[in-house]
């Protein structure tokens, strides 16, 4: 019987490609769900043998809890890794793939499922020129820095005053600093055109 896999991902295009790749490799994808879906009822209803999840999703911690609840729920792959798999687990982590697997799946199948998922995630990243998690954080920081520098220049403010300005604006508009920075940058970008 085919291994029944649940995909948890917020990017439609990527999860569709992964679903196709897994099916070609002989796995059965039972469903693809979003971060906002109720993972408890999904897991209860579908009882998948394995879950492939975007490692950047905070919902991983929910899967950890399910894994603690009992034998029928998949466990984090790091627990099941055999002697030769740390490299594969590291590779998966770097590619942003995280897996949860029930213990009765053979290591060979786990490896195959991981390899398919890693290459699917990597080709999506290459195709979209997508940033890795670390790069995203750096990009975010740079956006905030640029916006702050811009406010200092435009309004002739010091760093403290620029922060207070951003803080107040973000608060009034119920935004985060990053959202505000992006909006400021794109607004001035448009003006320039």
């Amino acid at each position, binding site marked *: 019987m085919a291994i029944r896999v649940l995909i948890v991902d917020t990017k439609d295009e990527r999860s569709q490609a992964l679903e196709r790749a897994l099916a070609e490799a002989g796995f059965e994808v039972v469903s693809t769900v979003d971060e906002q879906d109720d993972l408890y009822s999904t897991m209860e209803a579908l009882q998948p043998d394995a879950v492939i999840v975007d490692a*950047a*999703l*905070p919902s991983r*911690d929910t899967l950890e809890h399910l894994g*603690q609840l009992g034998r029928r729920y998949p466990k984090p792959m790091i627990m099941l890794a055999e002697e030769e798999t740390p490299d594969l*687990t590291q590779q998966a*982590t770097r590619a942003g793939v995280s897996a949860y697997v029930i213990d009765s799946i053979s290591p060979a199948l786990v490896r195959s499922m991981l390899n398919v998922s890693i290459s699917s995630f990597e080709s999506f990243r290459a195709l979209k020129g997508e940033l890795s998690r670390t790069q995203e954080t750096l990009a975010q920081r740079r956006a*905030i820095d640029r916006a702050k520098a811009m406010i200092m220049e435009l309004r002739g403010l010091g760093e403290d005053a620029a922060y207070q300005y951003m803080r107040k604006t973000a*608060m009034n508009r119920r935004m*985060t600093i990053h959202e505000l920075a992006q909006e400021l940058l794109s607004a001035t970008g448009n003006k320039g055109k």
Partner: protein
Amino acid sequence: MNSTLANGNAPAPELRRLTLGMLPLNDAAPLVVALEKGYFGSEGLDVSLSVETSWAGLRDGMQLGLLDGAQMLALMPLASTLGLDGRATPMLSAMTLNLGGNAITVSQALYERMLAQDPGAMQAPATQASALARVIDARRQAGEPKLRFANVYPFSSHRYLLRYWLAAGGIDPENDLELRVVPPPLMASQLESGRLDGYCVGEPWNRLAASRGQGHMLCGSFDIWGGGQEKVFGVCEAWALQYPNTHRAVLRALLRACVWLDEPGNREQAARLLCLGGYLDVSPAVVEAGLCNPQQVAGDRQTGRLAGATLFHRHAANFPWRSQTLWYARQMQRWGHLAEEVDLKVAIERCVRPDLYRQAAADLGISAPLVDSKVEGAHEEAWLLEGDRGDIPMRPDRFLDGSRFAP
């Protein structure tokens, strides 16, 4: 402490480039401050902070050797060493990063119902849960579904503080309600959509729900456990053995950051470093409110009422008390999450390392407690603890139900 103290006698770190893991939380402030204020730099360390999105991701990073050290939940080094959390990997902590910082928040609808059921009980944290018990009874009689509460990661202070509070109100956490794990950034939205009725989480995620009118903060960590340990700085045991001087240098830098964080007037700047640095994607006003220095708001008696308040250094906050980690471990056993046979004394001596803390504190001239454990919950009032460089003023450490925990 003399903040300009040079570490002239300290041996040079074996490893200079480090990647340390953290989660987007207010109490990641010691790591962010140590980096942004140059405390790591002055130890000769070149540190990158990796902002992880889940505790599971952070654990994987540690167990796979992708991270050199990390902000961790107090139970994580023990759980990793015992093989409960991921792959069995011995980890240790030589420093607590903060005390308190969590709160219990319920939906506006549940808050109003609790208030209607038992307004008197809602006046104090110790009795709030009995109002919840009455709501649970009423719901059961009316055939309504169980209430749903959430906490973060399984091996968390939040899980055990929430259960302690529930049990104090006569609620059986296993049967009277449904307990889930929900990642902090999703908690407020699930409260709003009605998927959750309440939760226990660290700041800024309580104040965020409150500021949006979605939730009501009932009480904080300090109401449940006056001196309770929260996050720790953890490393793999093998790493600590291989790079002892690096470890000590990191501890010194973090200690200086914690001292700075508890000096009056610095919390707002800390909030600013977290937000402008891109570490925490939440409105700065919400981060600031959650980070406010309890000392500056009111005297110690009121501190407990400042739900979600946190301490980074004062009252021996950074000392890794074995009795505190043991209390959490005993709570795990209480709820059947840890086998009774586990030799906790041996495990905790291995994972919680006050000896290493004392070395780093001595380098900075910071007074450290002489003992490794203390009776928890023994003080209703502020008290003095003997330290190796003078007495340390301590805060009340009362438990919600007035019980004492003698290790």
